C-alpha cells in the first residue's frame, strides 16, 4: 500500500536522530537494559512518527512514550495526550449485546470466539483498546506493515554492527 522504501528511509532517519540524542549524552554509561529500552523506544517512536499521526496506534505509541517521561518525544507530547484522551473517550460505541440466556448455538460460540480474539488483538495494538472494531482491522494492517519495515531496518543495523565487530569472519 504505502511506499515501503520511503517508509524505511524515513524511519531510519528519524531513528538515527533519536539514537544520536542518546549517544550525545555520553556522560552516563547506560546499562544493557537501558540501552535496549532506549533503542526500542527510539525505534518505536520513529516508526510511529512516519505515520504522521494518521493512525491511532502511532498516536497512542507517542502518547505512551511521552507520558512515560521520555525525552525524545518533546513537542509531540501535548498533541498526543490530547488525542489519547480523545481515543479513550471513543470507547466502544457499539455495546456488545450479551445474550442473557446461555445459548450454545454455533453462531453464539463463534461470536464469542471472535470477540475474544478481537479483544486480544486490541490489547496487542498500541492504543487499541479504544479502537472501534471497524477501524481495528485497518489499524492492524498499518501496524503490521510498520512493524515489518521496522524489523527490516533494525535487522540491517544489527548485521552491519556485527560486521564491524567481526570484520572478516
Amino acid at each position, binding site marked *: 500500500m504505502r511506499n*515501503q*522504501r*520511503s517508509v*524505511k*528511509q*524515513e524511519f531510519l*532517519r528519524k531513528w*538515527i536522530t533519536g*539514537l*544520536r540524542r542518546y*549517544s*550525545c549524552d*555520553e556522560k552516563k554509561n*547506560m546499562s544493557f537494559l537501558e*540501552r*535496549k529500552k*532506549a*533503542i*526500542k523506544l527510539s*525505534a*518505536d517512536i520513529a516508526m510511529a512518527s512516519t505515520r504522521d499521526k494518521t493512525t491511532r496506534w502511532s498516536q497512542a505509541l507517542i502518547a505512551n512514550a511521552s507520558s512515560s517521561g521520555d525525552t525524545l518525544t518533546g513537542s509531540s507530547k501535548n498533541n498526543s495526550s490530547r488525542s489519547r484522551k480523545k481515543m479513550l473517550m471513543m470507547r466502544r460505541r*457499539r455495546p456488545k449485546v450479551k445474550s442473557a440466556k446461555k445459548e450454545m*448455538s*454455533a*453462531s453464539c460460540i*463463534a461470536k464469542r*470466539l*471472535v470477540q475474544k*480474539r*478481537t479483544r*486480544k*488483538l486490541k490489547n*496487542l*495494538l498500541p492504543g487499541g483498546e479504544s479502537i472501534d*472494531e*471497524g477501524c*481495528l*482491522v*485497518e489499524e*492492524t*494492517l498499518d501496524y*503490521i*506493515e510498520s*512493524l515489518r519495515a521496522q*524489523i*527490516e531496518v*533494525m*535487522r*540491517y*543495523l*544489527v*548485521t*552491519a*554492527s556485527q*560486521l*564491524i*565487530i567481526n*570484520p*572478516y*569472519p
Partner: protein
Amino acid sequence: MGDRENFEVDRDRDRVNYSTSMASDWRFGVGNFANSMVDSYVTNFWDHPNSQNLGFCDINGGSSNMNVIGKDGFGYGRGSHDHRTLEMGWSHASSVLKGDNNAFLPNGPAMLPQSLSQFPSDSGFIERAARLSCFGAGNSVDMVNSFGIPQSMNLYARIGGTMQGTGDALLGHGLRSAALGGQSHKSDPNVVEDAKDDKEMTLQDDKRSENLAVSHDEGKQALGGSANESDRAESSGRDDSPMLECTSGEPSNKGLSSKKRKRIGLDADKDKVDGSPEQPGAAVKDNSGSRQQKEEQQPAPSTKGSGKNAKQGSQASDSPKEEYIHVRARRGQATNSHSLAERVRREKISERMKFLQDLVPGCSKVTGKAVMLDEIINYVQSLQRQVEFLSMKLATVNPRMDFNIEGLLAKEILQQRAGTSSAHGFPPELSMAFPPLHPSRPGLIHSTLPSMANSSDILRRTLQPNLAHLSGGFKDPNQLPEVWDDELHNVVQMTFPTSAPPSCQDLDGSAPSGQTKTEP
C-alpha cells in the same frame, strides 16, 4: 432487459426450484447451477426461447466473467470497485463475456426490444428495463436467478423491488468486494445518495450491485445477491407504485446490507464467512426456501418467523415493507437502522480482513474470522517480539550507543557478497534517503552516480573517508552521505546483476587495496 424482468417476475413460483437448485448446485459450480436453472425454469419459460439461452449463456459468461475478474489483482471483484466505475466495469465484463460467449451475447441486447414491447407500458418499469438492458451478462446472472414468467401487474412491482434489491445486494456486494477500503467508503455514501433519488437511482444501485455481483471472483456471491434480490423483491412487491418509486438512503442501505448478509450466508466457502454470519445467511436461505414453498407473495412475518429462522434477527420486518418500501432488508432480517448498519460495518470489516490475509503469511487458506484473527494475533506478537529481540541485539552489539552508521555500512559492503544479504532491499532505499539529506559531500555523490559501472572506483572513494571514521564514534551528519555511497555500490550490484560477479570481485579485490591505502 426484458428477459431479466421476466426472470425476476415470477419469483414466487420458482422460488422453490430456485432456492433448492441454488442451494444444491451453486456450490458445485456455476455450470451446474446453470443447468439446474435451465431445468427448473424450462416450464416457466417465457415466450422467448432465446431468453433462456441468453440467461444460460449469461450465467456461463457471467461466471466466466467473474472468474476472469476474480483472477485480476486482488481476487476481488475488480470490475465493481465502486459505483462510479460500475458501468465501466460492466463494459469490461461484457467485453470479457463477449470474448467467452460470442454466440450468445449478441442476442442479449437484441432481446431487449422484443421483451420490452411485450410488457405493458409501465413508465417506471420500462425505464428500469431500459437501464437494465445496458447491463452486461453479469447482471443477467442475477436476473436469471429470479427467472419466472410474468403473471400479473404485481410482477412488475416485484421487478421494481427486485431491481432495487439487486442494486442493494450488489451494492453491498461491491462494498464487500471493493479491493480498497477507501472504495468502500465511497460506496457507502453512494448508496445513501443514490437511494435518496428516485427509482432511477435504485435502478443504478441495481446495476451497480449486479455488476458487483458479476465481477466478484466467486459467482456464489452474485447468486446469493440475486437470491437476496428475489427475496427482497418478493417481500417488497406488495404495492406496485410505491415499490416502483420507493427509495431512500437508509432503506436501500439496509436492503443492501441484508443482501450482503445473505450472500455471505450462501457462500459457505468464503473465508471471511464466519460461523455467525453464516448462520444468519443460511437461515435467510432457509427462510426464502420456506417462503417459496408456501408460494406466498406477501409472506407475513409470522410465517417467516417459523422455526427455521430462529437465528434470524427480528423477522417482523416484512409488514413494514408494505408501506415502507424503501427498506430493502432481506426477508427475516431486521430492518431497524442498527442492524442494517451493523451489516454494512461487518461487510467493511470482512473486506479489510481480506487485506490482512494477504499481509499475514500463511493466512490464505484460512477460513473463518476466528482462525484468521488468531493468525493475525500470532503474527503481531511475533513481530513485536522480533523488535524486542533486535533492539536487545543492538544494545549488546553497541555498548556505547554510538551508531557509526557509515562505518557499519562500509563494513557491510566489504563483507557483502553478491546476492547475499538482507541488505539488498535496504541499501537502495537508504541511498535514496540520505544523499538528499546531507549535501556535504556532493562531489563524492555526484561522482559516484555517473560512474555507476565503475564500482571499484566508487568503493575506493567511499571507503577512504569511511575507514577514517571507523575508529571513533561519529556524530556528524555530514558523514552519512558517504555511507550511502557505499549503498550506491550495492545498488550497482543489484541493478546490474550480470555484472554483479565482476563487481563483487572488484569489491573484494579493491577492498583490501583500499584498506591498505588508507591504513598504511
